[in-house]
């Protein structure tokens, strides 16, 4: 009887591990339009309204916790910020949240005008969930293929580049953030036009790195990085040109072939509530 119980327990464990590995293998090898992916996207589409409802219902809790976090952070800042903090304490949390949303949306409109991308089929979306782990940095937004969103499209906020669309369902899209381990984008220094590739810095969610520059490239602290857009028509870039990415905070081994440029992204990916998805790229402008 005891042996039977042990055998059964081990069989169940083996079955679950094998099941996980089979799912993993099938999911990993599944193409974007594959059957398993379709089932997963279908299930996620069903869950999306529930998640969206929960996300809205729990927003006051998040805002409250965010407010507490901001308070702690502000304690370490200068007197002026302390004064602002004392004032901010008197303002109700939900009014603060509405102001932040308003500012975010205004910055987005300013960015659209500055980059002249109003005619690129911009789709505004609300962030409804975030990935909880350090390696895969993604967010889920509430607009999907029904609104013209497709895989690979660039995602922006008023402050700059957020990432690209990684997966799409009828009423949602998963956005791979600039800080995701798999992200990469062609970039240039806006002051000098020096090209390179921006990649994330694993484990540092508020930092990016610019690589593949040459030893003679003079990049300095404080320089601004923007997307390079398409430089070779054979390899069109998914990003419109001149979208702000971040500011150079440090240059490691300057003047060498292996120099690494540390960049602080303009967008705080942990604090994004609204995004815009560019659904119609104009090849002559990219």
């Amino acid at each position, binding site marked *: 009887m005891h042996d039977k119980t042990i055998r*059964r*327990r081990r069989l*169940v*464990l083996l079955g*679950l*591990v094998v*099941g*996980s*590995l*089979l*799912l*993993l*293998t*099938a*999911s*990993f090898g599944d193409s974007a339009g594959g059957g*398993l992916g379709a089932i*997963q*996207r279908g*299930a*996620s589409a069903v*869950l999306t309204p*529930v*998640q969206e409802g*929960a*996300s809205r219902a*729990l927003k006051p*809790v*998040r805002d409250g*916790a*965010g407010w507490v*976090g901001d308070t702690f952070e502000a304690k370490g800042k200068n007197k002026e910020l302390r004064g602002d903090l004392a004032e901010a304490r008197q303002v109700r949390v939900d009014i603060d949240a509405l102001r932040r949303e308003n500012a975010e949306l205004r910055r987005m409109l300013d960015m659209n005008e500055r980059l002249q991308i109003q005619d690129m089929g911009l789709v505004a979306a609300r962030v*409804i*969930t*975030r*990935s*909880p*782990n*350090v*390696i*895969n940095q*993604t967010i*889920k937004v509430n607009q999907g293929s029904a609104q013209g969103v497709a895989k690979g499209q660039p995602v922006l906020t008023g402050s700059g580049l957020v990432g690209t669309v990684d*997966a799409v*369902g009828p009423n949602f899209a*998963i956005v791979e953030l600039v800080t995701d*381990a*798999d992200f990469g984008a062609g970039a240039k220094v806006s002051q000098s036009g020096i090209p390179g590739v921006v990649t*994330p*810095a*694993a*484990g*540092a*969610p*508020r930092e990016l790195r610019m690589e593949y520059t040459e030893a003679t490239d003079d990049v300095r602290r404080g320089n601004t990085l923007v997307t390079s857009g398409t430089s070779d028509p054979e390899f069109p870039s998914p990003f419109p040109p001149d979208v702000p990415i971040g500011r150079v905070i440090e240059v490691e081994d300057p003047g060498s072939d292996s120099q690494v440029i540390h960049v602080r992204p303009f967008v705080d990916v*942990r*604090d994004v509530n609204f995004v815009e998805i560019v659904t119609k790229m104009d090849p002559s402008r990219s």
Partner: protein
Amino acid sequence: MATSAVLLVRLGALGLLAVVLQVSAVSQLTVFDTNADVVPLVVAFAALLTGAVPGAIFAFVAGLFIDTALVGTLGVSSLVYVAIGYGAGRLRELRDPQSSLVPLALGAAASAAAAFGFALVQFLLGAEAPVSFELIRQLVVATLVSTLLALPVYAGVRRALVPALPDDPRRRRRRAYTTGGLSPLSRP
């Protein structure tokens, strides 16, 4: 309804609730540049209360829920959570620990296993992230932040599952020994 059916329903609802709460709220609260993950805690505590086999099955399903909700690679979370669920269930079956610090210790272990296990599986799948001090620090901080939630999550899981659990003979025996006159030693 039979006890096992009630338990099944409660486990299913608990798993769904944990995943919805995690992706809709907990993931969006940033503490020290990272966020807590309550799903490994729920998996570990459910397994601690129900045993290795139900715990591992619950862990597998919870992993499926979260991979589906995030449209991630299916099976990754299930694989990591099955190890946590089975381990926590075996802890109960072999030791049946009763200290009030057990949820805290188990929560820390489950959070660490989830954070490092998930990173390991991602590396094995080819994620191009260099293993750096910052990454390790981030994983450790994520573990500590999740551990802070261990006690309230344990209380919630216990409240949800205990009424549906079958009476455990070991616990019945322990109650008998610890309630004065009911001890067999005190009988004539």
